[in-house]
């Protein structure tokens, strides 16, 4: 309680500052533009004014955030947002996280991060990039202006409560009161908002027509920064889903998860293709477009989360501001595309490649793959909406669809990484390439064969059974000719079933390729400089940080990929048990010993004691739990218990418990190799750190040093990993009694449940197989009965769809226009592949024509004078080469 006189005006003052922010952002934008177009010599002065007023604008945003924080700390319930998301009993930590816990506040928080970036960029720009600077500032201010307008018109966090100040706030939703809510959104936001900076530089480069190396070099560090936080944000999202959602997996292909990863693909593509621009000065249009698209996708992601357009587990954030985002997205798209088209004549340069067999060409291929995956995800994410608009048919595209289609594509991408690693820059000769590929190929084949032979024995079989997502024969016509029939679902299931062995082989190939890269580099250096191997390795890496940092990032990615492959071997089991009874999952025997009750100020905790044994080993007790918050007893949260290991995780979750009989319904999963995902995340950060290092050291007094930031990032993730005591949410359970006496599902039942969704109306996008709500339990019971009565699976599914509509299917049926869902991305992928190959080949041809010309020129004997001139320049070249960073 704080009714001191000096805080009387916080709501009004906060709103006032918001208006001031809009005005000052507009003024800064105007000043920056004036500085940009000025041709009368006033530009430096105006630029300084623009920089100052941009910094002032950022200070105003900071002021507003601090005011809101003060309102939270002093429980100023006159403000609707504060009343809605906090109460007097909340600890200070959650009062702070409440800043971004809800809609209006998270927009302010977003703007605040953008201001942080803006301030850092503005300070960093001092004394450099004179021509680009005004336009960079103008663009950032334009984006700020949008958020300012959005807040003042539609989402003012300082808006007053409707019926005056309530005596007590409603409190933060318990599902948001956990450790991950404190770190997952901020780190994802940092990545998302960070995309605005490269966008600003790209716009500046387009407007000024300075599209060469300048902006690319300026922007590389900022892109890496945003990229690493985007990666961490996504990994933390996986960790959150794994530890909090209680369904045993880590990535559900939820629309919001998809939206968060879309810009990651385009930024990754940019980080690769920019290396070609640095070397060859080509792909300028492409790089500029990638940056603009990435920024657009971050807006699109925010829009998806905020508009509630597509149902998702993040739907807590729904509101009416979606339409503003639509306008802004349209503006960004038109503006960006317009600029690119306008500058097209400047951007075009006859592109050349030394050879088709070169790393440059491999990068073109990798861009094609990354973009292909991005398009695939984007199409599948938006398909339900498209279908509703065009055909008035409500659909769902569930995780099953993404997993089935993207797994093979992912393996192709993985293989491309390895091939790219082994292909030299500039020009590969078949003979030397064969030598480079020999070792890794042998390793890959060996691992694949070993896996095929021994895999089953260690519980990780090389071929797994995958249930087809469709089972429809489609006749393929070519004009009047019938070419034959194809069953897309079964072919895909066959492919997916054989993927584990392939993936293991490709992973081994990749790891061997990177290892060989380190080994050969070290050996060459040790030989030529006569250094001992460890010294040679250390010097090699420190002299070529970008190259080897990149390889380490790849290693981290491989480790994460291992975890994803491991998900294919997941085993699960469930049982309803009285105290003392046991059930098994994988190699583990679980004994339910009974429940325990604990109480603290805000909640009751019901913990189940589950004794775990493996073979003869006693592995101790796990305690999955449910928390019942006093504020919201109707939403008990699910707290899973996980026993992590390098080989596999044992994951136990308590669905229900009867308070009288103590009969509990438990679910257990064995998740092979999941730990590798989080470890891979750490390795990935280490690689980025290494790649950023030299750059940071050259930035004197940089306002935003990359190193501490990356270290903070690593610490964040490590913190996330260390907090095994993850406390969690699962909000849709209404059954607390022992009504749900589910038995373990037979494989056939499991397959049936995986085909349809929970249609209780509260659970977004959960498949019936994984949903933990009471409605799902009774629906499962009904379907079981029908199976028992001898009905076919297809008939049961058809009846279910009949009753609940086509959106109750996990995967849209393989017929009519819904074929477009996979045909469109596949066609795009194929067309992109053909296009990329044709382009690369044309560039390589052009180069060989130029080569013969150049050779003819060098054959003319140079005069003595020219020769000495050449000698002088050659010396300088050697000099500069020594100083060139990697």
């Amino acid at each position, binding site marked *: 309680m704080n009714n001191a006189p000096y805080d009387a005006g916080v709501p009004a003052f906060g709103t006032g500052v918001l208006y001031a922010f809009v005005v000052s952002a507009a003024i800064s934008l105007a000043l920056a533009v004036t500085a940009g177009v000025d041709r009368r010599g006033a*530009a*430096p002065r105006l630029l300084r004014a623009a920089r100052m007023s941009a910094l002032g604008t950022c200070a105003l945003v900071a002021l507003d955030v601090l005011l809101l924080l003060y309102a939270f700390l002093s429980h100023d319930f006159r403000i609707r947002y504060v009343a809605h998301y906090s109460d007097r009993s909340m600890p200070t930590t959650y009062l702070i996280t409440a800043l971004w816990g809800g809609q209006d506040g998270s927009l302010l928080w977003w703007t605040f991060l953008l201001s942080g970036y803006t301030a850092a960029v503005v300070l960093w720009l001092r004394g450099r990039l004179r021509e680009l600077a005004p336009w960079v500032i103008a663009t950032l201010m334009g984006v700020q202006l949008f958020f300012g307008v959005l807040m003042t018109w539609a989402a003012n966090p300082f808006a007053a409560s409707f019926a005056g100040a309530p005596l007590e706030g409603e409190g933060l939703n318990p599902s948001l009161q956990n450790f991950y809510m404190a770190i997952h959104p901020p780190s994802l936001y940092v990545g998302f908002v960070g995309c605005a900076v490269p966008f600003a530089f790209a716009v500046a480069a387009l407007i000024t027509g300075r599209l060469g190396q300048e902006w690319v070099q300026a922007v590389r560090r900022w892109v890496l920064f945003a990229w690493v936080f985007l990666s961490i944000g996504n990994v933390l999202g996986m960790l959150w889903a794994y530890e909090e959602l209680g369904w045993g997996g880590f990535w559900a292909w939820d629309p919001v998860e998809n939206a968060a990863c879309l810009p990651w693909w385009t930024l990754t593509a940019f980080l690769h293709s920019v290396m070609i621009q640095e070397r060859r000065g080509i792909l300028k249009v492409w790089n500029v477009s990638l940056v603009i698209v990435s920024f657009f996708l971050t807006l699109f992601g925010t829009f998806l989360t905020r508009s509630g357009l597509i149902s998702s587990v993040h739907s807590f954030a729904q509101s009416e501001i979606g339409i503003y985002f639509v306008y802004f997205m349209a503006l960004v798209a038109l503006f960006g595309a317009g600029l690119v088209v306008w500058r097209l004549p400047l951007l075009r340069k006859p592109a050349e490649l030394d050879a088709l067999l070169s790393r440059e060409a491999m990068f073109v291929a990798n861009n094609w793959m990354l973009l292909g995956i991005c398009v695939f995800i984007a199409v599948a994410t938006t398909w339900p909406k498209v279908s509703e608009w065009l055909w008035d048919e409500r659909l769902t595209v569930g995780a099953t669809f993404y997993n089935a289609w993207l797994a093979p594509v992912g393996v192709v991408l993985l293989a491309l990484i390895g091939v790219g690693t082994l292909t030299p*820059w500039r020009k590969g000769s078949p003979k030397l390439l064969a030598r480079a590929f020999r070792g890794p190929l042998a390793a890959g084949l060996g691992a694949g064969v070993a896996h095929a032979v021994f895999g089953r024995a260690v519980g990780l079989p090389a071929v797994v059974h995958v249930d087809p997502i469709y089972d429809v024969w489609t006749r393929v016509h070519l004009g009047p000719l019938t070419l034959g029939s194809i069953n897309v679902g079964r072919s895909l299931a066959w492919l997916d079933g054989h993927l584990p062995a392939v993936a293991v082989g490709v992973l081994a190939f990749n790891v061997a390729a990177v290892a060989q890269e380190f080994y050969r580099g070290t050996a060459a250096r040790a030989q*030529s400089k006569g250094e001992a191997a460890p010294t040679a390795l250390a010097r090699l890496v420190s002299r070529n940080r970008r190259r080897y940092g990149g390889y380490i990032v790849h290693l981290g990615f491989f480790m994460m990929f291992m975890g994803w492959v491991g998900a294919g071997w997941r085993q699960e089991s469930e049982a309803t048990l009285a105290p003392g009874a046991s059930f098994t999952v994988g190699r583990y025997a679980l004994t339910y010993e009974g429940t325990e009750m604990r109480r603290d100020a805000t909640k009751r905790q019901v913990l189940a004691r589950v004794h775990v044994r493996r073979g003869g080993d006693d592995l101790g007790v796990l305690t999955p739990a449910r928390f019942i918050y006093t504020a919201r007893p109707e939403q008990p949260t699910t707290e899973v218990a996980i026993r992590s290991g390098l080989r596999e995780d044992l994951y136990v979750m308590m669905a229900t418990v009867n308070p009288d009989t103590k009969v509990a319904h438990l679910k257990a999963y064995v998740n092979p190799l999941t730990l590798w995902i989080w470890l891979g995340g750490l390795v990935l950060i280490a690689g980025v750190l290494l790649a950023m290092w030299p750059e940071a050291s050259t930035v004197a007094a940089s306002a935003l040093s990359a190193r501490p930031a990356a270290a903070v990032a690593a610490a964040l993730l490590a913190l996330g990993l260390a907090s095994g005591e993850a406390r969690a949410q699962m909000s849709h359970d209404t059954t607390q009694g022992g009504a749900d006496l589910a038995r373990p599902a037979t494989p056939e039942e499991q397959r049936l449940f995986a085909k349809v969704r929970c249609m209780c109306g509260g659970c977004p996008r959960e498949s019936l197989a994984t949903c933990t709500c009471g409605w799902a339990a009774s629906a499962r019971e009904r379907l079981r009965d029908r199976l028992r009565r001898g009905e076919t699976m297809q008939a049961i599914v058809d009846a279910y769809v009949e009753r609940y509509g086509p959106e109750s299917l996990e995967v849209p049926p393989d017929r009519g226009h819904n074929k477009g869902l996979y045909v469109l991305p596949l066609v795009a992928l194929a067309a992109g592949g053909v296009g990329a190959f044709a382009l690369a080949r044309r560039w390589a041809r052009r180069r060989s024509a130029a080569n013969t010309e150049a050779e003819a020129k060098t054959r003319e004997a140079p005069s003595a004078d020219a020769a000495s001139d050449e000698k002088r320049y050659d010396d300088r070249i050697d000099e500069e080469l020594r100083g060139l960073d990697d």
Partner: protein
Amino acid sequence: MGSTTDRGDDPLYRHVPALIVGGVFAVAVALGVARGGATAVLWLAFASLAGAVLLFWEALRHALDPSLPGDEALTDEGGASVEAEAKKREALRALKDIAFERSIGRLGEDDYKALEARYRAEARDAMRAVDEGLGPWLAKAEAQLATIEAGEAKTDATPEAEPAVSVAEPAAETPTETTRACPKCATTNDPDAVFCKKCGSRMVTEAEASDA
């Protein structure tokens, strides 16, 4: 804050913003300990408000008063020399790449020879173009560098050899041997100044620019 911009080069002054920010946070921490978090937050809010006001005042002054100096920055006018610089960098990177690939045995000797000759030629052409672009300043800078190196050689220091790329720094280090008057307001400026430090108007005349 008024006269601060004129002292921008003073190393003491350069730490002032950091000191102010540090001081503000120190007070915030002290208040937080003594009076609770809310008071500290209020103090920080006040500090940002003050900061915003000062920054806006400074912005306003610079926007309206033509006699104030602006942001000086090393800049070039785009065009030929930027292109050449980029080409040079590309060629150098290519040379580094192929040397590395050869060292780990992935690029054949013949291919290396051919590529090296090609990229060396490209780098030479680009450097020549850059040199021509730098024109009259290059000779001066090299002479100054030579005197500096000679001086350093006496004091037994190994010169960080990065010849003649950055023109401004050595010139700035040697005190006023030549100066240039601003064509508009006749203020004395450094010989390599692109904009007048007093009135901000362009120092390089059209003739020089097209020379370059």
